[in-house]
């Protein structure tokens, strides 16, 4: 482990301990925030008792479907937009301001289109995530070095060979960024949809606990979401670093 990682871990551990101390010594009111250790113990209790299993399965399966759909369709849409420069310039302002649209407002519309089932929530996560993938795809395709394209022409590669052997590998770091963001935004969309609108899943459980003044459950669930999302992101980050290092060597 290098120095940067050690300092980083110290910073994180230090902040958690500081919050713990502030809570324990009563500087922060118990009604506002619970000590992190208490959140963790209660979370463990919830997980062991199986009370939240159903919510977990529901949320995660929705996120997974939204994620896969957004990555696949986002890549295809990005490739199409990239191939048509005029369409692209017309789309740019919309892509640039996309994230200020609270997609959740379309929940009632999706309910009337898809029925009162899991699909309205999946659509929210999907719509939130797909733009990240489209933008990343555009970025990646933009940054394929012209030299490589020339190389493909010199070797008289077919269009499919050029796409598979030249364009995709050259654009892959950007595509990977898109995949990471799409995962994050799928989570954000699905959880926010559950939180504000729907009647199930982890987001709903947190809002319900807030309304019922059940701080223990609320903070335990928040901690759970934070841990899971951070763990998945760190795993992707490490994998990405490894891929980049291999590229650097090759």
């Amino acid at each position: 482990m290098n120095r940067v990682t050690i300092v980083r871990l110290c910073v994180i551990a230090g902040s958690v301990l500081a919050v713990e101390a502030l809570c324990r010594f009563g500087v922060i009111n118990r009604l506002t925030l619970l000590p992190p250790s208490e959140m963790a113990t209660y979370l463990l209790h919830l997980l062991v008792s199986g009370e939240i299993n159903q919510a977990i399965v529901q949320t995660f399966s929705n996120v997974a479907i939204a994620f896969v759909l957004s990555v696949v369709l986002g890549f295809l849409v990005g490739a199409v937009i990239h191939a048509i420069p005029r369409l692209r310039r017309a789309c740019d302002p919309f892509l640039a301001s996309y994230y200020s649209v609270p997609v959740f407002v379309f929940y009632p519309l999706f309910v009337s289109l898809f029925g009162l089932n899991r699909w309205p929530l999946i659509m929210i996560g999907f719509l939130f995530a797909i733009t990240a993938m489209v933008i990343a795809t555009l970025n990646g395709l933009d940054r394929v070095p012209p030299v490589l394209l020339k190389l493909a022409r010199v070797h008289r590669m077919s269009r499919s060979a050029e796409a598979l052997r030249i364009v995709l590998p050259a654009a892959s770091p950007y595509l990977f960024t898109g995949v990471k963001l799409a995962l994050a935004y799928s989570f954000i969309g699905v959880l926010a949809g559950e939180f504000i609108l729907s009647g199930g899943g982890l987001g709903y459980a947190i809002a319900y606990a807030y309304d019922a003044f059940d701080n223990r459950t609320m903070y335990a669930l928040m901690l759970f979401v934070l841990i899971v999302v951070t763990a998945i992101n760190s795993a992707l980050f490490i994998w990405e670093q490894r891929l980049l290092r291999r590229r650097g060597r090759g």
Partner: protein
Amino acid sequence: MSVIPEESGSAYVAGHDSARATQRRSLQRLLDSFLLVAALVVVWQLVYWKSEVAITGPIETAKTSIELLGSENFWRHALASGRAFGLSLLMSSVGGVAVGLALGAHRFSGAVAAPILTALYTIPKVTLYPMVLLIFGLGISAKVAFGVMHGIIPVVIFTMDAVRNINPVLMKTARVFKLSPRETAFRILIPAVLPEIVTGLRVGFSLTLLGVIIGEMFASQQGLGFMIINGMNVHNVRSLTAVVLLLLLFAVASGTVLLALERRLQR
């Protein structure tokens, strides 16, 4: 849509500086944007035919929006959102640029902070909103805090990356001319990283707006977010669709302006 990639591609590359070519290009661009908007309106109309209970059609919504723009009630809510948004935007821009410059300049702290910032950027902050409410209480401060939580991190990340990736020759020049840290910041650092910062501010702008609106949708009695959630709860589809349309127009208009600014700075 009748789009001819080859032609526009060559227009892209050739870049004749004659006034007529420029004029033709901007005319074509206008036409393309118009076609895209027209296509979106057609899709909207189709969706409306499919589910008339959940949305109003384009023409009716336009009428309702104009009515709303003339009503006092709408402006009261818009002003409430505007105030919260303005404050959050100010705090996330100034704070974000300051923190980003500091973390970028001090390489070690930047390296320590980078993954933490990415993690903060990707966590679903909505789930933390109850905590924000408990800390700040109901009212404008919670909304502002939530907006800042959403908006500040992209500004920090973009600014920090810009400073870290700055051309070393520029910093060497500053040292050769023996500029003071203040002069270095204002004469070299900021002009060099400005385009990236504007990109960060654009993303920050969008996410701050999103944060404020979400904040208003949950546990608030004022603002456009409240109007939206209230429209859902009492099934006032007309006002709901119109507020969403106005919000979208505002977002796209601001996005267009910021994007144009960014393009100009990059040149």
